[in-house]
């Protein structure tokens, strides 16, 4: 596989843990530079140490739920600081189980702010043709299998991810003429240090996954492929990555 490497610059959100961290590490390992956005300075520092090439990790501490309207300007500032981007992987998100009985508009707005509006406003900044390298630029949004399921208590979360996937299709049309690609990945249950500790998840849901639970590496591998020129004819797609669940 052609690696999206060698002096390429990517923006990764949610980079301090889980899928975002795994993608940042993989990109860095392939020689790319990564602007790693997260909220936790210590954990971003650990990422830089862990990758073995700290000079290629550029940690940026930012709460993406704050000042969403200003995120395009934020990306402009990052471009002036680090250079033009080859792409972005949007991983930052929140998940809450909220049955109808305790559904609150305020919770819904927060979920949509973080899972939908912030990624799109970041994309607006990065897809400004002055801020990316043009042809070959690739964006990947981490959605969720919940956008395709009907699990109880996931109405806001599922809605936010389904909205993200729908917008990916629309945006992909807008930027295709520039040779820029936009795709989504909908992972199923991924084993992370956090979820691995949840005994209930392992016991109650393992039968749903013929190939077992996914790993961060599974998602990172597909994300990196979609960023690479090997995927140059792929845009506007959403990949369900779920070990045979659906």
């Amino acid at each position: 596989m052609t690696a999206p490497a060698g002096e390429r610059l990517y923006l990764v959100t949610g980079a301090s843990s889980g899928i975002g961290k795994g993608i940042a590490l993989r990109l860095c390992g392939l020689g790319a530079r990564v602007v790693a956005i997260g909220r936790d300075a210590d954990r971003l520092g650990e990422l830089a140490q862990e990758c073995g090439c700290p000079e290629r990790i550029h940690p940026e501490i930012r709460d993406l739920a704050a000042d969403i309207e200003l995120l395009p300007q934020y990306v402009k500032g990052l471009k002036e600081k680090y250079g033009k981007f080859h792409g972005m992987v949007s991983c930052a998100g929140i998940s809450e189980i909220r049955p109808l009985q305790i559904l609150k508009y305020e919770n819904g707005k927060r979920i949509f702010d973080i899972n939908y509006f912030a990624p799109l406003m970041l994309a607006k900044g990065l897809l400004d043709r002055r801020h990316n390298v043009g042809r070959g630029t690739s964006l990947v949004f981490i959605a969720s299998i919940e956008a395709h399921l009907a699990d109880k208590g996931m109405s806001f979360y599922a809605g936010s991810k389904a909205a993200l996937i729908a917008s990916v299709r629309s945006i992909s049309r807008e930027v295709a003429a520039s040779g820029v690609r936009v795709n989504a990945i909908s992972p199923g249950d991924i084993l992370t240090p956090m979820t691995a500790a949840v005994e209930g998840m392992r016991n109650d849901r393992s039968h749903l996954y013929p190939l077992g639970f996914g790993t961060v590496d599974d998602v990172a591998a597909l994300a990196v492929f979609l960023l690479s020129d090997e995927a140059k004819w792929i845009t506007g797609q959403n990949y369900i990555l779920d070990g045979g669940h659906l």
Partner: protein
Amino acid sequence: MTHEEFLEKFQDVLQAEDPLGMDTVLEDLDEWDSLARMATVAFLDSDFGVQATFEDFTTMKTVADVARKAGIAS
């Protein structure tokens, strides 16, 4: 809105690398494609409350023409 403010905003709408002038001819811009026209129509509506259509671009040839459409005094 001053001329300078308009030029800055319209440059962002078009994502133009170079600053615009009032005498800039829209067709001369690399960025002037169908999406830019769509963005300009939306810009006139959202920022100035002005309804425009693609047909208006038969008479709007320069940045100054767009500014006039927006109601910015020349």
